[in-house]
Structures are given as structure tokens and as C-alpha cells.
């Protein structure tokens, strides 16, 4: 290799592999060494899967050398959030001390699909314990310790719960990673780590083999250096899965046509950044000026519905049912989070009528979202209204507890809508900020095209932190 590949996008790495300018084994070793050496600095790493990675890399090398090139991910190393099951006697810890020795020993559908596409699994990445579903007040709520964004003074939080996925991509330890989002867990670390993250439509990607937190809210999605890379990964992981009955019959094929000639129609949520930090407001304002070059922007307002309350009730009731035996076991004490975690016991007392009311309100919200967003390519907003919190301070805003407002996050997740977050500048302490493009269900190509058009005329995604 003549040039180090740590910050090359998948498309470029794929070109090098296809032209045999770099070999899959060489590339896997480079990223394995890098992940092993640098991952612990960011508390981003749980397990390096070296043996499996080198086996997969040798297979990819043989296939490519025989001219059997499988596509964009063939020979590309990646990591998964450690709530995704993997075969090969590799632990799947769910980020939590009580599950530190758990071995599921089968491949989740998403891992099988990536293996079939020729991608190379090099590691299992850190996360907030139990995907943050029990609520948490500090970044320390992880068996791996607080994950650190590679930006700024290296003393601020990655965001959660796909913390290690965010840090590892941002620091160039993996070319891409898989994260999961129930409410904010892909977009928030993408924002805090200055990378691109895609939350697909609910049901677009099989959840089989992923830790359930909320059956009707959980989504798996890619975290990458660019929106284009997110499209390349989604192309391989999307699709119907008989093992997950909630997967959609609707097919997905990534449309990677150059979006430069398109004129987009954007919606802007009224007062989106009203309570944001000054730098977040300023960067969002600059982003709007750029988006005016590629489309129109109309301000919209969501009608008054209990978006957050309905989403929280669904999350509370489903997670309580999923973890009821865990509550009963007393192992809850072994979790790393502060004492506020015990508040999660309250979910076991949410009445069934409240859960069903939330599901009935969800139907209304889906109609509202469809009516409001139907004529737009995307609604634009910020993934977060502040930069990353210092790791020794409490998290300032938690969407999933209490009555805090998060309309885009709650609508997007309760209605299962796709959204992509990309970096749009820097704020306090040299920490990144972001912008999100959220679209209609099953229209990932629209939001990805908008994000790619934005990245075609900005340079934030090409800026990387130093080691």
C-alpha cells in the first residue's frame, strides 16, 4: 500500500481492492492492528475477531484473485455493535457486565448478509449497556467504560448507544460499522463523532440476532465516513428475512446516481434549533444556505400530538417485557450505570391500556408524518442541539426519559422513518455538529441523495481527527 487507508471511503477502498492495488488480507491486518492498538484509547472496543477476520480475508483474496468480485463490500473490514450475534465462540456482551461471558454462537442475519457480500468482520464494538434502554445519566453506563469521541481534547462522549461504532469509524479504526437505533442511537453518535450514520426504515434490515430492546422500534443501520458509503452498506444488508417477520417485502436497491443536477424539496421544522447552542445554530444556518443552492426549503410545523409520550410508552412497555426476567434476577445491580438506572423498574407497572393507547396514537402519527412529509424529499434538522458532553459530566438531554421534547427523534422512530445524519461543522471545544435528513418510509434513496448532494459541496466529511 502506498497510502494509508484509514480514512478512505468504502468506494475508494473497493476500487483499490478490485484493481488489486491492495489485498483483502493486507487491508484486514492493517485495520485489525489499528483497531487493537487505538480502540482501547476511546473505550470503543470489546473484542477483536482476528481469527475469523483473517479467514474471511483469505477467502476474499482468493475470490478476487480468481476474478470473482462480489461487489462494493468485498474485502472491506467492518465492526459491529456488540449486541449483534456472531458465530465462532465470540462473546456478544450487550455492553453489560452481567452478559460479559454470553456466547450466542450464531451469525445474526445482518452478519450473514455482510459475509455473503464478502465483508470482513474485524471486531465487536462498545455500546451503552443494554443499548441504553434502561435509561442512563452518565456515559459510564457501559461495561467498556465511557466511549470517547476522537475529536476535541479526547475527553468528550461519543454519544450512545452505538458508541464504539461511532468512535471506531471517526478514528479510522474500521471503514464502516453497524449500529442500532431504538431512539437516537445511530444519529446521536454520528453527530458527536462527526461521521455519517443512516437509520433505515423500520423493517428494512433484519433484526434477527440483535439484542431486542423494543420490538417495534429497533433498527440496525450503517455508520460510515460518507452518506454514499451508507448507501453501499444498506444495499447489502436490506431485505426480507424469514427469521424476522417484521422485515419488509419492499425491496431496496441503492441509487448512486450523481445527485448534483437534482432540485430537492426540503421541509424545515419550525424552531428546530431555537434551544440549541450558538455554534449549532450557526452551523445549521450555514447548512441551510448551502441547501438553498440545491433545493427549496419550506418551514413546517407538526400538529400538537403526544409524540414523545407515545414513543416512550412503547419503549418502556416493550423493554419491560423483554427484560422482566432480568429485573427479577437481581442482576440489575451489576450494571455499570449510576443509581438512576433503578428507575427502569417503574416500567413494569405501565398499564396495558397505556401501551395500547400509544400504539393507537402511533397510527395517527404515521398518518401525520405521511401527510406532512409526503411531498418533500426530506425534512431537515439537527440530530442534537449541542455538542458532545464531557465524559465526566451528566448527559444534558435524555430523550428517552421524562418529558423532554424531541419531535424529529420521536416521530422518526415511532413512525419508523429513515434518516441520515452527516457532519456540518464544529462547535465548542472543537467538537463536531451535524445535520439530519429524514424522509418518508422506504425512501432511503431520497435522503441519501440529499445528504450526498450536501457532501458534494461541503468538506466536513473529509476532515478527520488526529490520533
Amino acid at each position, binding site marked *: 500500500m502506498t497510502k494509508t487507508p484509514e480514512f478512505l471511503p468504502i468506494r475508494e477502498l473497493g476500487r483499490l481492492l478490485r484493481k488489486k492495488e491492495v489485498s483483502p488480507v493486507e487491508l484486514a491486518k492493517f485495520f485489525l492492528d489499528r483497531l487493537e492498538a487505538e480502540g482501547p484509547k476511546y473505550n470503543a472496543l470489546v473484542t477483536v475477531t482476528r481469527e475469523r477476520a483473517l479467514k474471511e480475508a483469505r477467502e476474499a483474496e482468493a475470490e478476487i484473485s480468481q476474478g470473482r468480485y462480489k461487489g462494493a463490500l468485498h474485502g472491506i473490514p467492518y465492526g459491529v455493535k456488540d449486541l449483534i450475534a456472531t458465530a465462532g465462540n465470540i462473546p456478544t456482551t450487550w455492553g453489560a457486565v452481567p452478559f460479559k461471558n454470553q456466547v450466542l454462537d450464531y451469525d445474526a442475519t445482518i452478519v450473514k448478509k455482510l459475509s455473503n457480500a464478502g465483508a470482513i468482520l474485524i471486531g465487536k464494538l462498545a455500546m451503552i449497556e443494554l443499548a441504553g434502554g434502561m*435509561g442512563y445519566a452518565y456515559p459510564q453506563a457501559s461495561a467498556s467504560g465511557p466511549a470517547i469521541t476522537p475529536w476535541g481534547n479526547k475527553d468528550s462522549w461519543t454519544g450512545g448507544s452505538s458508541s464504539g461504532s461511532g468512535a471506531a469509524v471517526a478514528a479510522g479504526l474500521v471503514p464502516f460499522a453497524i449500529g442500532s437505533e431504538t431512539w437516537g442511537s445511530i444519529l446521536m453518535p454520528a453527530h458527536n463523532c462527526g461521521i455519517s450514520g443512516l437509520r433505515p426504515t423500520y423493517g428494512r434490515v433484519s433484526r434477527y440476532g440483535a439484542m431486542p430492546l423494543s*420490538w*417495534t422500534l429497533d433498527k440496525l443501520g450503517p455508520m460510515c465516513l460518507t452518506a454514499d458509503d451508507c448507501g453501499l452498506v444498506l444495499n447489502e444488508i436490506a431485505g426480507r428475512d*424469514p427469521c424476522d*417477520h*417484521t422485515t419488509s417485502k419492499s425491496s431496496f436497491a441503492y441509487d448512486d446516481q450523481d445527485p448534483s443536477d437534482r432540485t430537492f424539496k426540503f421541509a424545515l421544522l419550525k424552531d428546530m434549533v431555537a434551544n440549541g447552542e450558538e455554534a449549532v445554530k450557526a452551523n445549521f444556518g450555514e447548512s441551510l444556505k448551502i441547501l438553498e443552492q440545491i433545493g427549496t426549503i419550506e418551514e413546517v410545523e407538526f400538529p400538537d*400530538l*403526544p409524540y414523545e*409520550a*407515545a414513543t*416512550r*410508552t412503547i419503549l*418502556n412497555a416493550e423493554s419491560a417485557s423483554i427484560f422482566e426476567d432480568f*429485573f427479577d434476577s*437481581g442482576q440489575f445491580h451489576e450494571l455499570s450505570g449510576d*443509581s*438512576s*438506572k*433503578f*428507575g*427502569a*423498574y*417503574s*416500567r*413494569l*407497572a*405501565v*398499564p396495558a391500556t*397505556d401501551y*395500547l*393507547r*400509544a*400504539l*393507537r*396514537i*402511533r*397510527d*395517527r402519527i*404515521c398518518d401525520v408524518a405521511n401527510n406532512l412529509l409526503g411531498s418533500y424529499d426530506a425534512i431537515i434538522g439537527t440530530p442534537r442541539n449541542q455538542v458532545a458532553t464531557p465524559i465526566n459530566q451528566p448527559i444534558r438531554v435524555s430523550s428517552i*426519559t*421524562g*418529558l423532554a421534547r424531541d419531535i424529529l427523534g420521536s416521530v422518526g422512530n415511532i413512525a419508523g422513518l429513515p434518516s441520515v445524519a452527516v457532519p456540518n461543522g464544529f462547535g465548542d471545544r472543537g467538537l463536531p455538529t451535524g445535520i439530519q435528513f429524514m424522509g418518508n418510509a422506504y425512501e432511503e434513496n431520497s435522503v441519501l441523495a440529499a445528504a450526498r448532494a450536501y457532501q458534494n459541496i461541503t468538506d466536513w466529511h473529509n476532515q478527520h481527527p488526529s490520533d
Partner: protein
Amino acid sequence: MSDETVRKAEIEKRFSFLEARFSKQLNEDEMGEVLKGVESTVDISIAMRSFELTYKDEPRSIFHPYDKEEKS
């Protein structure tokens, strides 16, 4: 009864159930966190119940009957 009286009654009812189930497992401070959680979830319920639904509003259900084709 005032709204606040109803709220307090619901908090007490939910908390007493959890206290009966978990007080052997959790200490006083931990049960205090449970109480805070109950207050929060009751407030969420109240916010949600303030939204009027009609008989036409059905839940987005995750149930559908077994489908042989789906499993193939």
C-alpha cells in the same frame, strides 16, 4: 377529585405494586429511584391520555396470522 389527587393515587398504586415485588431486592435509596421512575412514567401516561382518540383509532399491531409463504 383534582388532577393532582388522581396523579398521586396512580403513583401510589403503581409504586406499591413494585414495592411488594422488589423491596427484598432493592434498598431504600434504590426504591427511591424506582419512585422517581414511577412519577415520570405516570406523567408520560397523563400526557398521552390527554390526547383524544376515537373508536376508529386502532393500534398499529405487530400481530398477523401465520403465513406459510412468509416463512418460506
